[in-house]
C-alpha cells in the first residue's frame, strides 16, 4: 500500500488538472432534502425523449409521467412544481449521474431489478409504471398472437435486456428467428418501418411511443403477449432514508388521492368540506390525514403539513397524470391495465397514510 500511496501522490500532481475540470458535483453526503431546500430546486434525471414518460418540445418544456413525478416531489418540498431542473440522461449514464450527486431523483423509466437495488448504490422508491416487453408487428401480416411468429425477423436495441428476453422467449417456445440488433432506438424504428424486420420488440410503452413516429401508426399492432416484467420507477441514492421517504410518499400520495377520489380539480372543495368537519371529529379520516387537516404527517418527512395537498393541487392524482400523458385519450393510447388501482384489478396500491 505504501507504493500505492507514493504512486498516487506523484500522479495526483499530474492529474490535478483533470480533477479541476470535473464539474463541481461534490458527493452530497448530508441530507438530500436539506441540500435540495438550500439550492432551491430539485435536479431530476429523465430520459432523452420517450413520449408519455419524458419528452421535451423545442422550447424545452418537459411532459410525461416521469416528469410529473419529479414535479410532484418539487410540489411536496417547495409547494411549487416548477422548481425542478430536468437533466436528460442516456441509459448508460443514468445511475452514475445519480450516485455522483448530479441529480437528486432518477425518474427515467428504469426497471427495478435486484442487481440495481443492491449493487449499484441506489434504491428504488416505488413503481410508477408497470411495463413489460411486448412485440409489435405490421397489421398487414395478419398475425394475432406471438405463437405465429415462428421464423420472424426481429429488430431491437443492443445492450439492453430486451435482446436477451426475446432470445429466451423464442428459444423456450422452440421458434426460429433472426435478430437484428441496432445501436440506437431511432434506427430500430426506421429499419422496422422500412420492412427490414417483421417484429419490433421493446417495452410496451416504448412500442406505443415508437408507433407514433410511423407514417401509418394504425398499420401496426402490439401483440397481447408480455414477455418480461419491467416495473419502472424512480430511484434515489442509498443511505438517505428521509429522501427515499419523500419520493416514495409523494408517489403514494398521488395513488391515495386517486383512490379517495381527490383530484386537482376538487381538492380545494374537498379540503374546505373536510376542514369544517375535522373540528367536529367527523368526516373522512383518511382524506383529512392526506390533506394535512388532522395530524401533521409532513413534519416526519421534513415537509410542510400540506405537502400532499400541494402535490394533488398542483400536479394531480396518479390517474390524472396517467390520463394526461399515456392514457387512452393521448396519442399513446395505453389502457390502464396493470397500472389500474388495486381496487380496479390493477397493481397500483398506495400505502395508507396513517
Amino acid at each position, binding site marked *: 500500500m505504501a507504493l500505492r500511496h507514493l504512486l498516487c501522490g506523484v500522479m495526483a500532481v499530474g492529474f490535478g488538472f483533470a480533477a479541476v475540470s470535473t464539474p463541481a458535483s461534490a458527493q452530497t453526503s448530508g441530507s438530500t432534502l436539506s441540500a435540495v431546500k438550500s439550492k432551491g430546486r430539485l435536479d431530476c434525471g429523465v430520459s432523452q425523449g420517450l413520449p408519455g414518460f419524458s419528452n421535451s418540445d423545442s422550447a424545452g418544456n418537459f411532459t410525461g409521467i416521469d416528469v410529473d413525478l419529479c414535479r410532484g416531489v418539487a410540489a411536496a418540498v417547495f409547494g411549487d412544481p416548477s422548481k425542478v431542473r430536468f437533466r436528460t440522461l442516456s441509459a448508460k449514464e443514468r445511475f452514475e449521474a445519480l450516485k455522483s450527486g448530479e441529480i437528486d431523483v432518477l425518474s427515467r423509466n428504469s426497471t427495478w431489478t435486484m442487481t440495481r437495488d443492491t449493487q449499484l448504490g441506489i434504491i428504488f422508491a416505488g413503481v410508477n409504471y408497470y411495463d413489460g416487453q411486448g412485440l409489435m408487428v405490421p397489421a398487414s401480416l395478419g398475425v394475432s398472437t406471438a405463437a405465429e411468429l415462428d421464423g420472424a425477423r426481429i429488430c431491437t436495441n*443492443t445492450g439492453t435486456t430486451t435482446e436477451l428476453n426475446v432470445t429466451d422467449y423464442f428459444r423456450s417456445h422452440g421458434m426460429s428467428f433472426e435478430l437484428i440488433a441496432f445501436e440506437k432506438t431511432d434506427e430500430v424504428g*426506421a429499419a422496422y418501418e*422500412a420492412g*427490414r424486420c417483421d417484429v419490433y420488440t421493446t417495452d410496451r410503452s416504448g412500442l406505443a411511443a415508437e408507433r407514433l413516429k410511423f407514417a401509418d401508426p394504425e398499420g401496426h399492432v402490439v401483440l397481447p403477449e408480455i414477455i418480461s416484467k419491467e416495473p419502472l420507477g424512480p430511484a434515489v441514492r442509498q443511505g438517505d432514508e428521509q429522501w427515499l421517504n419523500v419520493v416514495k410518499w409523494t408517489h403514494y400520495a398521488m395513488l391515495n388521492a386517486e383512490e379517495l377520489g381527490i383530484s386537482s380539480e376538487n381538492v380545494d372543495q374537498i379540503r374546505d368540506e373536510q376542514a369544517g368537519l375535522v373540528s367536529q371529529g367527523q368526516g373522512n379520516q383518511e382524506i383529512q390525514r392526506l390533506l394535512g387537516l388532522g395530524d401533521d404527517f409532513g413534519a416526519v418527512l421534513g415537509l410542510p403539513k400540506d405537502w400532499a395537498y400541494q402535490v394533488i393541487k398542483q400536479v394531480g392524482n396518479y390517474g390524472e397524470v396517467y390520463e394526461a400523458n399515456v392514457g387512452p385519450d393521448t396519442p399513446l393510447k395505453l389502457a390502464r391495465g396493470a397500472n389500474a388501482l388495486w381496487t380496479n384489478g390493477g397493481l397500483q396500491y398506495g400505502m395508507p397514510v396513517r
Partner: protein
Amino acid sequence: MTASAETPSSGSSRSSGSLLYDPKVRSIFFQVALILAVLLFFGWIVLNTMANLRARNISSGFDFLGNTPGFQTVTTLGTYLMDVSGRAITYLDVLKVGLINTLLVAVLGIVTATILGFVIGVFRLSNNAVLYGFSTVYVELLRNTPLLLQIFFWYFAALRAPWVPDARGKVSFFWDNFHFNITGLYGPYPLPQTGFGATLWALVIGLILTFVMRWWAKKRQDATGKQFPIFWGAVGLILGLPLLVFLLTGAPLRWEAANFVQEGPVLRRGFQKGEGMLIIPELIALWLALSLYTAAFIAEIVRAGILAVNKGQTEAAHALGISQSKNLRLVVIPQALRVIIPPLTSQYLNITKNSSLAVAIAYPDFFSQVQISLNQTGRAIELIVIAMLVYLTFSLITSAIMNYVNSRMKLVER
C-alpha cells in the same frame, strides 16, 4: 541531445559538475527518467484499475469467453462458416463470427475501392470534360462528408428504395439464379462434394507453375530476347488447369439455390433461412459506403502517382517505338506504383479500421460483436483490449505485406 552526441566523450576524471554536461550521462539520465515516469504512470493506472474493480465488484478475467451468450447473431458469412452444430455457442464463437465478417467486408471493400479508385483517378486526368467533371465532383463530394453519414445514407437509401420488394416478394435476375428483396441479396451457395479437393490442388499447382513459367520466360528473354505470352500462359495455368480437373472429376460442386416459399404461415413465407447464399442489406450498405468513400481518396492517390511520372519518360518510350499500351504497362504504371503504393497501404488499413463503423447499422462485424458482448458481460477491459489487439494485428500484417511489395517495387539503385 542529438546535437551533442558527436562531441568527444569526456574523460572519467571530470568533476561531478561537468559530469552533468557529459552527453552520455545526460542521455542515460533522460532515458532512465522517462522509462521510470512511464512505468510509474502504468503502475498507477493498474493499481487504480484494480482498486476500482474491487470497489465496484466487477469480476475480471477471460473465463467469460467460454460462456453461452443469451443473444443470437444475424445470419452472415461468419455464421455460415462457423459450424457450431452440436454444441452451445460461446462468446468466443461470437467474436470469431465478427472477425470473419470484418475480414469479409474489408476484402470486398478493398477490391471494389481499388478498381473504382483507379478508374476515377484516371478520369481525373482525362481531357474529356465530362469524365473530368464527373470525377472531380465525385471526389470532392465524397471526400468532404463524414463516412458515418454516408453509411447511414446508403443503409436507409437501400431500405427505403421504392423498387426493393418487401420480405415476402422478390426480384430475380441472371436467369432466376439471383434474387433480392429488403432482407438481402440471395444467390446460389456452393457446396463442395467429395473430390472437389482435386480442383483446389490443381489451383495450387497452377499457381506454382505460373511462378516457374515466369522465371523461365524471363531467363529465356534475357538469353535470347524472345518474349513469351506470360499472361495467356498464366490464364491457362490458373484458370484452365483447375477447370479441366474440375470437369474431369465430374464437376463435384453442388449449388444450393435460395429457397423461396409462397405458401404456409405468413412469417414462414419468403426466402428460407440457411438456404442459398445471403448478403444482408447491412453488409451491402457498409460495403458500398466504404468502397465509394475510400475510392475518392484512392483516386487522388492514383492521380498524384501518374502525375509524378515525368513526361519525358513517355516521350522517351515513344522515341524507342514502344506502343501506347506497352508504354502505360511497362513505363508509366511501374513508376507510378512506386508513388502510389505507400499511401494506398494506409487506405487499405483505413478500410479495415473504418469497417468498425458497422456498429452503427447492425452489421455484426468484429467491433459490433465486441460491443454487444461488452454490454452483456460487462468485461470492458478484456474486450476492448482484445479489440485493440485484433485491429493492431490487422495493421501490422497489412503494413508487413505492403512493405514487402514496396521493397520489390523500389528503384534498384546502383
